[in-house]
């Protein structure tokens, strides 16, 4: 049984794609790329939810449910990235992406509260800020690819 | 040679049904008896983990057989005597009702102990 369990553990580690906390530049760039992509995906999702809600095309329960998943997913991606110790050559990139991730987190939380309170008046402004942030993330992603 | 049967290919692991088609068990093994004519005669079909265990083989097979023996309180597997077999085809059809051969003790136990206690168990699904 011993071999079986150690084999299973190795498989799970491989599958979980866990990244060492002191990654080299390539691993760090790859992790940054995937984190930026995940943040972009959730930012655009929330923007879509607000836009369709504002246009009366979205159901409020669906928006609330999806907002919850988007916020969780963003928090997980952010946490997994900011806990890394970046190689010195990547300090600027680390700071830049961490800032964008922080802004994204705040904006998504703001969006959740707005939808919770059905404050449709605030949606257009939030959508613009979310889209602006998404473009920055997209540019960063483009540079990393 | 037309009605010869290859036991492994056409008898073992076949479904046994009773005379009105109710499912009874699988042919988990076949009992062979040495007769004075020196030949091996098929005298019964054997069913249940007591018969299936040895065919699974290895530690797992033994575990299946011994666990069942402990639960059932006997080592002899379920036995359907050859005289109650009506035909052997895609399935083995009995000439009798399944309660006559009484090989599904576990089914009866599960029915009386658990399933019968759940409301609606006696009602035909609508």
């Amino acid at each position, binding site marked *: 049984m011993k071999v079986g369990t150690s084999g299973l553990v190795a498989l799970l580690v491989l599958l979980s794609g866990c990244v060492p906390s002191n990654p080299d530049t390539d691993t760090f760039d790859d992790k940054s790329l995937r984190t930026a992509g995940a943040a972009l995906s959730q930012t655009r999702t929330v923007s879509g939810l607000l836009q369709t809600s504002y246009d009366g095309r979205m159901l409020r329960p669906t928006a609330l449910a999806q907002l919850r998943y988007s916020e969780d997913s963003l928090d997980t991606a952010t946490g997994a990235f900011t806990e890394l110790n970046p190689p010195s050559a990547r300090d600027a990139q680390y700071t830049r992406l961490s800032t964008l991730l922080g802004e994204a987190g705040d904006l998504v939380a703001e969006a959740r509260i707005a939808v919770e309170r059905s404050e449709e008046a605030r949606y257009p402004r939030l959508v613009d800020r979310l889209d602006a942030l998404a473009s920055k993330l997209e540019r960063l992603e483009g540079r990393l690819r | 040679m037309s009605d010869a049967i290859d036991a492994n290919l056409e008898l073992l692991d076949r479904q046994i049904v009773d005379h009105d088609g109710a499912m009874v068990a699988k042919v988990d093994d076949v009992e062979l008896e040495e007769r004075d004519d020196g030949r091996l005669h098929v005298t019964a079909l054997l069913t249940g983990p007591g018969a299936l265990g040895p065919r699974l083989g290895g530690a797992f097979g033994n575990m299946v057989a011994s666990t069942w023996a402990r639960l059932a309180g006997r080592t002899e597997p379920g036995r359907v*005597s*050859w005289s109650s077999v009506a035909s052997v085809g895609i399935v083995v059809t009995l000439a009798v009702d399944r309660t006559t051969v009484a090989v599904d003790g576990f089914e009866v136990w599960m029915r009386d102990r658990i399933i019968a206690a759940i409301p609606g168990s006696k009602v035909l699904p609508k």
Partner: protein
Amino acid sequence: MTVRHRLNDLLGMQVRYADGTDGDRVIDVRLAPGPRVPGPMAELVVDGMVVGKMRPGTLFGYDRHPTQGPWLLRQVIGFLHRHTGYLEWADVERIDWDARVVHVRRTSLRKLPPAR
């Protein structure tokens, strides 16, 4: 005292030919109708044994239904089971149930007659 065995004991037994060679095993047991007995069906009696290498696909039945498709499988299984042959009951000298060996009067297998 009636001596009873299980078919599973017979399946897989080593076959030892008259010249002492072995290596083949009992793959299947052919049953034929025997004496009339109480009950709807005549009693079945062991009439012969299908013998060969214990390789996967014994239960696919390709050796006994040679025309069975599909072509791809027939070639693969046919190749695996090219040694399969047959022994009539008369060819069996004795069955040693404890050592799990079937002692045979012949030095080679008969050609396998299809079951149907």
